[in-house]
C-alpha cells in the first residue's frame, strides 16, 4: 500500500517521522502503547516520543525502570495478551542485557506455541555511529538479529520510509526490530504524508538506477552510497544504488535482479566486516547469479574492531570515498 499523491504532507526529519508514525498508530489503535527508558515526560533522549505522553497519558507512554530485559520481556508478555507494545531501547548498544528475551522468546513464541501466542510487538532502537557519542552508543549489529529466525529487522533511510515502515512494523503480526540510524535522525528532511500509509517490510528500493555496478546499502549508509555513485558518474561509472530497507527478510529478488543487470556489486554497512550482512548478500548473489558475476563483491564496511571513541569514528565509518574506492575496484576488476 502506498500513499495517495494528493494527501497533505509535512516536511519532517527522520526522527520526527518516527514520532509521527507512533502518534498515528496510537491514535488509530488503542492497543498500541510505548514503553522504554525516558520515553515519557522526557519524550525520549532523541525526542522520538516527544509529546506522546501528554497526548496519550502515562498508561500508554510508559517510562520503565532501567532494565532492558525487563522492557523486552514485559513487552513479550503484553504482546502475548494482544496488546501491541512498541518498546524502545535507548541505544542499540544497550539491547544486549535484553538479548536473551529477543532470541529466546520474542523470536520464537509463535513457533513454540504453534501459532497460539503471537507477538505483535516492535522493538525500536536508535542505531549506528557518526554522532560523536560515547562508547557503546554507535553500534550496528543488525547481523545478530538477521541470524535469528522469527524476527523481522527493518532499517529505514528516509523520513518517508521511516513512517511507513514503522506503521507496517506496528501492524505486523510478527515481532519487528526497528533500527533507526541516528546519524540521519536530523540530517535532512523529507516529505511525509500526514495520514497513515505502509511501506512494505521486506522490499528494497532502487534509489538510483545504473547498469555498471550495484551498490547495496541501508540506513545511514545509503547516503554515502548515493554520493559515491554521483561522484563516479562523472567518471563514466553508472552505479545502481539499492536501499535494502529491511535486512530480515532480505529482498533477495531485488538484490538478484540488480546484480544480474550489473554483474558487479559493492555492499556497504557500518557493522564490522566479518560476519556482517555483506557476507550474506555476497553469498546470495553468487548462489543465484554466479554466472552473471564479473568481479568479486566488494565489502565496504566497518572494520573488525570495537567501534572507536569518537575522535576516530570518521575513520571507522564507511563514507563516500571508501564506497567510491569499492566501486572502482568492482568495476576495474
Amino acid at each position, binding site marked *: 500500500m502506498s500513499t495517495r499523491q494528493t494527501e497533505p504532507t509535512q516536511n519532517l526529519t527522520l526522527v520526527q517521522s518516527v514520532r509521527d508514525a507512533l502518534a498515528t498508530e496510537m491514535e488509530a489503535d488503542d492497543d498500541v*502503547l510505548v514503553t522504554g527508558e525516558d520515553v515519557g515526560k522526557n519524550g525520549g533522549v532523541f525526542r522520538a516520543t516527544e509529546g506522546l505522553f501528554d497526548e496519550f497519558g502515562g*498508561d500508554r507512554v*510508559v517510562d*520503565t*525502570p532501567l*532494565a532492558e*530485559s*525487563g522492557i*523486552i*520481556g*514485559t*513487552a*513479550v*508478555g*503484553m*504482546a*502475548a*495478551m*494482544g*496488546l501491541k*507494545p512498541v518498546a524502545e531501547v535507548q541505544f542499540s548498544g544497550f539491547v544486549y*542485557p535484553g538479548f*536473551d*528475551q529477543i532470541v*529466546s*522468546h520474542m523470536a520464537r*513464541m*509463535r*513457533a*513454540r*506455541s*504453534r*501459532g*497460539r*501466542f*503471537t507477538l505483535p510487538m516492535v522493538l525500536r532502537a536508535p542505531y549506528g555511529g557518526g554522532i560523536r557519542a560515547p562508547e557503546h552508543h554507535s553500534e550496528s549489529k543488525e547481523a545478530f538479529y538477521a541470524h535469528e*529466525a*522469527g524476527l*523481522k529487522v527493518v532499517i529505514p533511510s528516509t523520513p518517508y520510509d521511516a513512517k511507513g515502515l514503522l506503521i507496517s512494523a506496528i501492524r505486523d*503480526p*510478527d515481532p519487528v526490530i526497528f533500527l533507526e540510524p541516528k546519524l540521519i535522525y536530523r540530517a535532512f528532511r523529507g516529505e511525509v504524508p500526514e495520514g497513515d500509509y505502509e511501506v512494505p517490510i*521486506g522490499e528494497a528500493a532502487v534509489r538510483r538506477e545504473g547498469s555498471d555496478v550495484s551498490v547495496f546499502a541501508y540506513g545511514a549508509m545509503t547516503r554515502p552510497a548515493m554520493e559515491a555513485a554521483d561522484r563516479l558518474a562523472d567518471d563514466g561509472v553508472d552505479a545502481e544504488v539499492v536501499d535494502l530497507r529491511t535486512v530480515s*527478510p*532480505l529482498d*533477495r*529478488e531485488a538484490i538478484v535482479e540488480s546484480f544480474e543487470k550489473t554483474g558487479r556489486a559493492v555492499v556497504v554497512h557500518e557493522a564490522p566486516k566479518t560476519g556482517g550482512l555483506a557476507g550474506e548478500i555476497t553469498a546470495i548473489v553468487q548462489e543465484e547469479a554466479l554466472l552473471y558475476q564479473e568481479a568479486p563483491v566488494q565489502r565496504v564496511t566497518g572494520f573488525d574492531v570495537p567501534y572507536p571513541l569518537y575522535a576516530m569514528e570518521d575513520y571507522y565509518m564507511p563514507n563516500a570515498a571508501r564506497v567510491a574506492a569499492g566501486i572502482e575496484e568492482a568495476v576495474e576488476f
Partner: protein
Amino acid sequence: MSTLERDPREGEVRVLDENGDVVGDAPDLSAEELLAMYRQMKLARRFDTRAVSLQRQGRMGTFPPMSGQEGAQVASAMALADDDWVVPSYREHAVSLVRGVSLERTLLYWMGDERGSRMADGVNVFPVAVPIASQIPHATGMAWANKLRNDDGTPDAVVCYFGDGATSEGDFHEGLNFAGVFDTPNVFFCNNNQWAISVPRSKQTASATLAQKADAYGFEGVQVDGMDPLAVYKVTEEALAKARDPDKGELRPTLIEAVQYRFGAHTTADDPSVYREDAEVEEWKAKDPIPRLERYLRGRDLLDDDRVADIEESVETEVADAIEAAESTTRPDPSSMFEHVYEEMTPELRAQAERFADLRERYGDEAFLDD
C-alpha cells in the same frame, strides 16, 4: 541479627503439620474440593512416576520429575480463578494439569513434539519456559496488560512459577521490580525445592529466606510450607485476592516462597546421589504432601481405604490412557518445522521448505534419520 543466624523458616505459614494434624487456620474448601485436590496430587505423582519410566525405557526424552512438589503445585493452581493465567517453568506438570492441560499434551511435549507446546484454546497457561527465570518478565507484562485492559479495578491475576535457582537470575529481579513499580496483579510463586540441579539453596544466595527478596521490590514476601497443600492454598488465595483488589497502601504483587523438596532427580539425565545424601532425602520424604493430606482427609471421614483404592485405580487408568494416546499420535510432519516461524513464510523460508521437500522426495526420510 545477621541473616546468617536467623532460622530461615521461622516465619513460614503452616496449616498441617507433618502428621496431617491441623496447626493453623485451614482454608475454606468444600469436601469436593479437598478430594479433588487429593486426587490431582495422586494423579500428578502417578504421572510423574510413569513418565520417568517411559524415559528409562527410551519411550520419551529427558523429563524433569516433580514428585514431592505436588502439594505446592496442585494447591496453588486450585486457588486460581478461571480467568487467571499461569506462566510455568518446565516442572509444573501438576499446575498445568489442574489448569486444564491434558497429560497427553504434556507427554507429547516431552516426547519432543511441538504440538505438546501448543496449549488448547481457552487454557490460560503459557508454554513451558526453559531458560531459567526468563518467563518472569512475561508474567509481569501479562499482568500489566490485564490491568491496563481492566475497567472494574479487579484485573485477572497472573501466577508465575519458578525455582529457587531462578531467584539468582537478572530476570527475576527485573520482572519483580517492574511488578512493584507498575503494581501489576502478579503472584510470583517460587517452588523452592532446595536444589538447582546440584547447587543447594544455601549456595544460591546468602539471604536467609527467598521470601525476603520481595523487600527489594516494595511488596510482600511470604514463606509457606510448600508440602502443606492447605497452607499453600491459603497463601495463594490471599495473594490472588490482593492482586485483584489490594487494600489501600498495599501493592498487588506477592512473592511466595513455597519450601519443599524434589524427591527425585533434577531430570532423568541427572544423578542426585553425586551431590546429596540419602538421609536428607529421607528427612524430606517424611513431609510428603500426599500422605499428609490423606491423613487429614481420613481424619475428617472424607477418605477411607476403599476410596483411596478407587482413586488409585482411576488415576492409573487416566495416566495409562494419556500415555496410550500420546504414543499413538502420528509423528509430526517434518515440513511443519517451517510453519509458524512467521505468520506468512518469507520467500527464502519457502525456498528452504521446498528444497527440503525435494530432498525428502529424492532421498527418502531414511536419509535424514540414519545419522
